[in-house]
Structures are given as structure tokens and as C-alpha cells.
């Protein structure tokens, strides 16, 4: 028996993970509402894969399944990956991505608490590089689709790769970020491009609401003190700032800061991915630097890079810098460097 003899009753690893999962629920509901039931299949597949992969790895590593299997961390990785990739895809895509995330990115790096890179983003990067065609196959918002895909159809597509009666093209569509990039290359002005039906008030139709739900979930996590404000604020502030600079330079070639905030993975990344405890700095100043780095890279990859969105690569690049950031941003310790009387 050693002191302290009491522990916080209301916080454990699993309650934290469950709260983060809970904070994703509003966004999932919005996703379902705007893009149909395919996302639920995607989430279910990734969850099952994650739990199976986790169980297999825990057994191999001789860890007690009892405490680790349902700590929620594998499930969170699965959900973040499922929410990051297109929900209309063959079943094996999400399975491969999730399994790689859990087996390689998490367990081969030492398991919970020891992985250098965000597992979900490693899974994403693997899929993005290995299967780029599937990774751009995003479903169109239901209100723009001539043929809304129902649950049975989605299930059918997942496991057979075909849709009865319709072509896949009829139900998928380029994302707003993608559209903007292609249209800009065709020398259209941002203001003209944004007249296209896919765009909503700030970002993409439907997807901007999902982004708002991520924001809501993120604020919940902040209010519950699961995350601190540092990473989301510095991430989004940097994104806004750099977008504003380019928007100010040439508003016809660069989208507005609001557009960047509410498209792609910005909100999901700022509140749920960049804030992953294990792969982000722990010091307040380190968090600010990390968030700013992710925000900056996110914008650069999005606007000047070859990929439609940059959240995975920006997070992974900054993950690699975390030990260095932490080492150089150690806060002052009580009683050190005090002003002499």
C-alpha cells in the first residue's frame, strides 16, 4: 500500500475513450442524414476489424485481454479511420486500413501509449497511397444524388462491388476540396466555382454540417476537460491565418478561411485527430507549436500539394516531431528561475 490511497473515481482510460467516441456521435448522425447509411456499415466493419486485430495482437503480446480489449482505444482508431475515408468502398478497404492501423501503427510500436504515429492516420495514409482510386470515391450528398443509396444497396456494394441498376458514378462525386482544386486548374475563379451545387454556405453541402458537428463534439470534449484548447485553437487559427493571407492576396484563386475551416478533415483533425494524447505533445507550448504545424501543413498540402486534403500527412509529419517539441518546450518548474527578491 503506497500513497495516495485514493484515486479519481470518474476517469479511466476507457471512460476517456468512451467520451471521445460519444463526442463523435452527433457528427455520425449528420453524416447518416446527409450521405446515407453507408457510413454505418463502414463504422461497423472498422469496429469489428479493430477489435479482432486488437485481440489477436494482445494475445500475441501476452497482454490480459480483460483490461485492454475494451479500453476503447482500438474502437476510437477504427471510428476515426472510418470517418476519414469514403464510406462507399469495397469491404476490404476499411478492413485493410484498420488492421494496418491496429497491428502495425499501434501494436508493433508498443501498443497503447507507445505509438509514435496516429494509428488512424497511418491507416489512412496506407490506403491513400495503395488504393488512391477508392479513396476519392466519395458519395454525393443525398439531396444532390439522382439515386440515393439505401442500406441494402450500400451493403450490397460493400460486399459485391456493384450496384444493381445504377453506375457507381451516379452516386459518387468529387469532394468540394477536390472540385475546387480541379476547377481552379481550369482557370475558373473561386467565386464561380462555389456556385456549383456541391457547395454550401461555407464548405460542401452537407459536409459543412458534419464539420459543425465535429466542432460541437470538440467543444464538449474541451468542456469536459478531455482535451485542452491549445491544439484545436492553434491548428484552426493557423489555418485561418494562412488562408486569410492567401485569400487577401488573390480572392479569386484562393478560397476563404471559412471554406477551409468547414471542408475536408479540418474540424475532425483539429478536435479529434491532432489532439490524440499519445501522438501529440504534452506541454502547453508544445501543443501550440504542434497545432500550428499541423494547420500550416494542412493548408499547404491542400492548396499546393497533390492530395485533395492534407490532414493525415500533416498530422503524421508533426507526430514525428513530437519528442523534439516536448523536449524543447518544457515549462518552468515551481521555484525555478524565480525573480530574485
Amino acid at each position, binding site marked *: 500500500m503506497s500513497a495516495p490511497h*485514493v484515486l479519481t473515481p470518474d476517469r479511466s482510460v476507457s471512460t476517456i475513450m468512451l467520451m471521445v467516441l460519444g463526442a463523435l456521435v452527433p457528427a455520425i448522425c449528420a453524416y447518416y442524414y446527409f450521405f446515407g447509411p453507408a457510413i454505418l456499415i463502414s463504422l461497423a466493419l472498422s469496429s469489428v476489424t479493430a477489435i479482432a486485430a486488437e485481440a489477436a495482437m494482445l494475445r500475441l503480446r501476452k497482454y490480459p485481454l480483460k483490461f485492454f480489449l475494451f479500453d476503447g482505444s482500438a474502437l476510437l482508431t477504427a471510428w476515426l479511420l472510418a470517418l476519414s475515408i469514403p464510406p462507399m468502398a469495397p469491404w476490404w478497404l476499411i478492413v485493410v486500413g484498420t488492421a494496418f492501423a491496429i497491428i502495425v501503427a499501434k501494436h508493433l510500436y508498443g501498443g497503447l501509449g507507445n505509438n509514435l504515429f496516429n494509428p488512424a492516420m497511418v491507416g489512412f495514409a496506407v490506403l491513400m497511397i495503395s488504393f488512391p482510386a477508392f479513396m476519392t470515391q466519395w458519395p454525393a450528398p443525398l439531396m444532390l444524388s439522382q439515386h440515393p443509396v439505401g442500406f441494402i444497396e450500400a451493403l450490397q456494394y460493400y460486399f459485391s462491388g456493384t450496384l444493381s441498376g445504377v453506375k457507381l458514378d451516379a452516386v459518387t462525386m468529387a469532394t468540394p476540396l477536390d472540385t475546387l482544386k480541379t476547377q481552379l486548374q481550369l482557370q475558373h475563379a473561386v467565386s464561380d466555382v462555389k456556385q456549383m451545387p456541391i457547395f454550401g454556405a461555407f464548405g460542401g453541402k452537407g459536409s459543412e454540417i458534419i464539420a459543425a458537428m465535429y466542432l460541437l463534439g470538440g467543444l464538449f470534449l474541451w468542456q469536459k476537460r478531455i482535451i485542452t484548447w491549445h491544439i484545436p485553437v492553434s491548428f484552426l487559427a493557423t489555418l485561418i491565418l494562412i488562408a486569410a493571407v492567401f485569400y487577401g492576396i488573390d480572392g479569386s484563386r484562393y478560397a476563404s478561411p471559412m471554406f477551409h475551416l468547414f471542408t475536408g478533415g479540418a474540424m475532425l483533425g483539429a478536435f479529434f485527430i491532432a489532439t490524440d494524447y499519445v501522438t501529440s505533445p504534452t506541454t502547453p507550448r508544445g501543443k501550440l507549436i504542434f497545432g500550428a504545424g499541423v494547420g500550416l501543413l494542412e493548408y499547404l498540402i491542400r492548396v499546393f500539394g497533390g492530395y485533395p486534403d492534407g490532414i493525415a500527412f500533416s498530422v503524421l509529419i508533426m507526430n514525428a516531431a513530437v519528442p523534439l517539441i516536448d523536449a524543447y518546450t518544457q515549462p518552468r518548474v515551481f521555484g525555478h528561475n524565480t525573480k530574485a527578491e
Partner: protein
Amino acid sequence: MRTFYKFHGGVHPPEHKEESNRLPIAPAPLAKRLTVPLRQHIGNPAIPVVKVGDQVLKGQMIGAADGFISAAVHAPTSGTVSAIEPHAVPHPSGLPDLCITIEADGEERWIERAPLDYRNADPDAVRLRLRDAGVVGLGGAVFPSYVKLNPGAPAGIKTLVLNGAECEPWITSDDRLMRERAAEVVEGIKIMAHLMCPKEVLIGIEDNKPEAAAAMRAACQGTGYEVVVVPTLYPSGGEKQLIKLLTGKEVPAGQRPVNIGVTCSNTGTACTVHRAVNHGEPVISRIVTVTGNVPEPRNFEALIGTPIAEIIQLAGGARPDTTHYILGGPMMGFGLNNLNAPLAKAVNCVIAASPALFPPPPPPMPCIRCGRCAQACPCELQPQELFWFSHSQNFDKARAYNLFDCIECGACSYVCPSHIPLVSYYRFAKSEIAMRDMEKKLAEQAKERFELKQQRIEREKQEKAARFAEKAAAAAKAAAAASGVEDPEAAAKKAAIQAAVERAKAKKAEAAAALLPLPLRERAGERGENLDAPSPSPPSRTHPHPNLPLEGEGTIALSPSRGELERGFEGEGVKNNTEAS
């Protein structure tokens, strides 16, 4: 209303003060046999000044202060000394320590008690009185008060802080003391202020003790002392935290409050100062909270030396589902493994623990770097980094990340969602580092010894050679003389005397070579010259303990380890300070 300054972090564990703070302090009945430990304070244990069989009076000194950092201990009642031997004591190590056992005669005959008019007395006489009355800090660190109440700093003392925060959950002994004996506490503060001449006196009390604060305010009327109510936030009663709260000043790392013109004492200590000076009564009793899994939790004023088992009985005895006992609070207290251990000056609380009140911790999970510990750390450390380095035994890094600034308050462990016993890791790392430092020192000394020995051997060789040459010369001379006039016998005698002188010289040189202090030499003897020999592995070093001889230079300046206040006095530092003054 005075403003206070916030310290970083802190936690708010369930207070559980209500259980024991409703009833007034009850006197504990006299036990048949009282066992008084000779080490109830930081520093050297007291030296017994009675023999087995001696009759002693209540309040009679039975152990005298030994050296500068020490305090006397006294007979808590009148009776006969029945034993002076190792006995179970309330100490985290669980090891027995030398105690004086007194069979009470039930007559409670006092020694002659003489008040001391401190206002007209030499301050040193007052301090001596405190030393001989065994007055030590009752907040937990039990540092001899007479040493502390010495305005040694060149700039003098600006602020005298009285610690009535009592931030540990469950404990209410200071709360009840301030409610019931505020006037005595204030009398004690007057004596402290007289010795220290501070510009201001601040009494810090957490806002969960409004009655105590009100009583102290009333008692402070007209004195100019100020009661400052601080928010309830553990560890506001940590010395450095309270000083920050009340003055906004931070005690620099590795230094003591006196370096920034502040002295901090517990309110309970103030009360004993008053009793010692104004009434001539040494510290032979204290107020102890008995709470937790007992039917009638409350505070008792019990004689030092009363078996803790008997004190628990006063509260109705522990319920059957009690699994263990905690001495002190749940954040920094330690498990009591022998109920025969007596009440000592440092014991402010006994908690009977049951699985319902103190559920066993769930198995630890890996650190997920959530940083809650860093948010909770009152020392503004990065506990997750310290854990990482301690866990991987990367001790240099742990030290570089200021491991030794950790006060082991337990806030980090308390909030950890992975339920990692962080403080245990820090203690482990601290003692490992201390041991390595000592080993390094010993190795250096061994090297020095070895070199001296080499020199000696070399010298002896030369001397031997010289003697041989001399002898040969003498023999040659004698041979020459034999054929001549000189007496051969006289020449041989001369040579023998010469040889004896040489031998004596060599012996002297050898003695000089063994420069090392005795204990170290003994230790060196155990170890021989072999540097690879495993060093004796000492038990926990976070608490000074009799069975761990911290010999002179081996004293390890660990960061303060326990007690809600009066930390920061490391033996050597104080010694140096007074030597300088």
C-alpha cells in the same frame, strides 16, 4: 479581505472532514503502558537519559536532544521505565526503532512546571526551552521548532506563515484545535513572532473550515495577525504551496522559505510552543483524528506513546470489514502494519480503511500521455515525463527533468486515468539516484584509499631496502670493528634500535593514510577494496529511519518527502546556515 495567489494545479479529492469534525476533542484515557520512540523528529534520535527501573514523573525528560537537529522526548505520565529497546513504531518502513517503555503508575505526578517569561528572556533561552520541551513541527515533517524559529536570514524574516490549511482529506485535528483552542494557538504565535520579529503574520486556513477561521479571527483580535481563507484545493497545505498562496512568492528550488524571508509553521505546533513556554509543559500529547471505518470517528487528545490500537478502540474500534490502517491522510499517509506501534508526535490521523471507503486500485494501464498529471502537479513538473524516465531507469534524465522538486503530494497519481502509482515510481527513482550518488562517492573514496595504500607500500619497500642497506653497512662496520676497537655488541644494539624507530615511523604513516571517518572506514571494511562488490542496498530513503544509518557525509539530501508542512529543512543545509550565523 486579503487576496491570495494561486498555485498551479492541485486536486480536489472528496474531503470526508464531516465524519470527524463534529464532536469536540475528547481526552484519551491513560494507557497502562506507554512506549515513547526516541526518534520522533527529523535529525538525530534523542539519547536516553533514564535507565530501566527508574521512576519518572509526567513531563520528565527521558531522552535528550542529540546535536543540533534533534529534540528531546519526555515521559507522558509518571511511572517506571520498564524497557529501553527496539519496538514497533509508526514509520512507513515498518522497522522497529529504539523506544522507552513506561509502566504507568496511574498517579500522573507532574514534574515541576515553570513558565518562562519569554518577553524578558534571552531568545536563545526560549529556543533552548523549545528544544528541551521536544517541540517539533506537528504538520507531519516533525522538524525541531527551535531550529526553525531562528531568524538566521541576513535580511530577517518578513512573513511568518501559520499553516492551518489541513488540506489532506479526512484529517480534522487542526480544525478542531483551532476551533477549541484558538487562544492558545495565538499565544504560541506570539512567542514565535517574538522570536522571529516578522513584519506580518498570516494564518492560512482552507475555506472548508469556516468555524476554525472564525475562531482564529476572533482570537487574533488586536494582534495584527491576519487570517487568510484560501480555497480548498489539495495540496494548499504544502509549505511551498501555502507560501505561494499567501505571499505570491515562490521558494526557489532546493532552498528553504527562510531564503525568501518566510517561515512557515503548523498551527498545532504554535499550540505546543505556547504550552512549553507559558506553562512549562513539554510535548507529551497530541490531537489525533481517528476516522474512516469506525463507528464514532472523532478527535482525541492522547498521550504520546499510547498504543494506536487503543486509540482506535476509543472511536468504537474498527468495523470487521477493515482491511488496513492509514496513518496520516489518504494522499500522503502510509499503511500501518503494526497496531502495537505507539502514537508519535507526527501522527495526526489514523484512518481505518475498508474496501468500500478505499477501493483497491484497478490494475495500472499504460500511460496515454493525457497530461492530466501535469495539469494537477503543484510543482509544475511534467509527471508523465518523470514516469517515463523513472520507468525506463533513465535516472539522469529524470534528474534533469527536476525529479527532486517533486514533493510526492500524490496529485498526479490521484488524477491518472491509467491508475499508475506514479509517486512510487518517483520514490524508487529518487532512492536509486541517491544510492548511485553514494556509491559513486564511496568508489571515489575507495580509489583514494587505494592510491594511498599504493604509496604506503612503495614507501615501505624503499624503507625496507634502506634498512637492509643500513644493516649490511652496520654488519660490515661491525665486522671491520671486530677486527678493530669498537664493541660489536653495542653496534648490533644500535642497529636494532634504529630498525625499531623505522618501524614505528612506518606505522605512523599508515595510520595517517587511513584518513577516513570511522563509519566510512567500517563500511569500507565490509566492502573491502573490491569496487565491484554489491553495495548494501538500503531500504526506503525517503524517510529517515534509525536502521538506516545516514552516516555523516552519507546524508542524502532527498527532496522533502512527507508532511503537509514544515518541509524543506534538510539537515545539512540548516547546519551550514547556523554555522555561518
